[in-house]
């Protein structure tokens, strides 16, 4: 499993991060004044966070989890309601609702410790359905299907004597990007640590892992808790960016979208979900010109990638490179 670290060894890590920060800084300028494309950029970043967190549970711990939209929804609604009904500050609400999503993730993990494979898939799907239904039915709290309107962006901050307002979509993009990079570094460090080895052991062979003294239940709970908290964090930015909150944004089909991002990008790799989130968020937008047919093309693309690129885009790219460069190398 050392291939992930050695993969990047041709460049020091700080070079990569410098490149990423440069890209983040430059990208909003590329889309010019289009508010529409700026909002797409933000949703790409949120989707990256969701796909990375799902990948922790699905790709690294091997838990077939189909309810990620539920955690996203908890983050979004908890943040908004804590601000509107309890008068919380945005940042405290953000931390509180991420933690709330994490706790709910731990509760869901209780199923993961008892169920396997498809049973867990349906149980986690049931969790997302139930959460969606609660959002729809709890009128006094969530306004039901009508949704909550006019949600304010995070409060303005003063950095280096400069007032930064987050109703400017570019600033909001920088803000969520910083969080996304932090999440990436956090997950990358976890997964390269012994904890990562442990999670992969649970994924590869639970019985052997347990026989080596690994508490597999505990690590599944850990994975669900952390993954859910990150999804909740992504969720807490969502309402302030779209301004409205309706339950259907967190329907169970959204979970399938995040799942597709992880798979198409490359499950069980750090960069895979990032690529998957970018590609699958951009694809319908790029195809917008062809009207209603775009989702058809989206479906076809998704199916074809799964059929012909088993390891996702990352794996496909790797094997393309190794075909070109090596006659001697041992492939991973």
């Amino acid at each position: 499993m050392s291939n992930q670290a050695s993969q990047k060894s041709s460049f020091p890590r700080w070079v990569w991060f410098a490149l990423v920060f440069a890209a983040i800084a430059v990208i909003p300028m590329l889309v010019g004044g289009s508010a529409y494309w700026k909002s797409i950029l933000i949703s790409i970043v949120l989707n990256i966070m969701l796909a990375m967190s799902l990948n922790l549970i699905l790709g690294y711990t091997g838990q077939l989890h189909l309810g990620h939209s539920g955690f996203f929804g908890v983050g979004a609604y908890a943040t908004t309601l804590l601000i509107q009904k309890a008068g919380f500050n945005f940042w405290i609400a953000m931390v509180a609702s991420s933690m709330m999503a994490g706790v709910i993730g731990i509760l869901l993990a209780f199923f993961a410790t008892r169920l396997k494979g498809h049973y867990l898939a349906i149980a986690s799907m049931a969790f997302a359905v139930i959460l969606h239904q609660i959002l729809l039915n709890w009128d006094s709290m969530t306004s039901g299907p009508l949704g909550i309107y006019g949600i304010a962006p995070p409060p303005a901050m003063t950095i280096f004597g400069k007032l930064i307002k987050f109703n400017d979509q570019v600033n909001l993009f920088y803000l969520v990007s910083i969080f996304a990079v932090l999440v990436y570094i956090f997950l990358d460090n976890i997964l390269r640590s012994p904890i990562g080895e442990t999670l992969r052991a649970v994924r590869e062979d639970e019985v052997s892992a347990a026989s080596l003294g690994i508490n597999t239940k505990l690590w599944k709970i850990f994975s669900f808790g952390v993954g859910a908290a990150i999804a909740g964090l992504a969720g807490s930015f969502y309402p302030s960016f779209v301004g409205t909150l309706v339950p259907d944004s967190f329907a169970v089909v959204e979970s399938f979208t995040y799942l597709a991002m992880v798979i198409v990008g490359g499950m069980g790799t750090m960069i895979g979900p990032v690529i998957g989130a970018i590609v699958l968020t951009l694809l319908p937008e790029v195809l917008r010109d062809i009207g209603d047919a775009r989702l058809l093309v989206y479906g076809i693309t998704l199916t074809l990638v799964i059929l012909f690129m088993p390891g996702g885009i990352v794996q496909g790219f790797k094997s393309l490179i190794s075909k070109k460069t090596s006659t001697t190398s041992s492939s991973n």
Partner: protein
Amino acid sequence: MVDIASLIIQQSINGIVMGCLYVMVALGLTLIYGVMNQINFAHADFVTLGAFASYFFVKWMGGGYLISILVAFLAGGVLGYIINLTIFAPLRDRGDELRPLIATIGASILLENGSLLFFGPVPYQYDTPYADAIRIGKIFFTEQSLLVVLVASAAIAALYAFMKFTFTGKALRAISQDRETAGLMGINQAFLIMLTIVIASAMAGMAGAMLGPILVLTPFAGASVVVKAFAIVIIGGFGNMEGTIIAGLLVGLIEAFTTQYLGSGVIDLVVFGLLLVMLLVRPTGLIAEKKEENV
């Protein structure tokens, strides 16, 4: 005081009618799971397609509604054959449970948006010629309900008999118990798995035709039914026919009584709440099937 007994009977009838349709859909899921260990997320689209096939047969070709049920049966079967050919067959035996699952999600997105392109988002509506009410005492039901129960029971009974008593059915059960050994016994897996998927999707198409006049018929109509079918399959125990039949009727009844006493908005809450409780208390389903775990 309203007559409680007749209210209960009335809702039980409503529940059984929906339950029969759920069983038809859920049996397909459970059969596919049985032979392939695979969840089919495109199952919803077989239901939708069946409903559309029935609609177009009745509206455009002036066919009779009864025959349209048969048309939907065939349409579902053909779609099942295509899905097997393009997705399940190429991905089978690669020892990966996740990828075929995602592929069916992809196929589902493809089918739903394909039909959105052709049929548009505006709901289609057509009436069954059997809308007249039958009244027995204080209890009402439509002729359509009677038709649903009769056709569904016949189809379910035929499928059950096929699985239990025919040689092909035995071979199918052999595959679901141990695929490798079944292969060694000379059972043609590829053909039988194809057959299962075709039967499963034909049943779903048929259920779609009978749901058609009740549903708000859009390209996404089948989804709500299939989400419940997933719950039913789990409550009944994956791959277990008897359990699925009982669970399907149970969910139909729960739905009817939830509508009566709590309101229709909370049906999914109740059904999926029950599902989670069931998974905690009895993860093997209503009727447990003994299965050894290989270590």
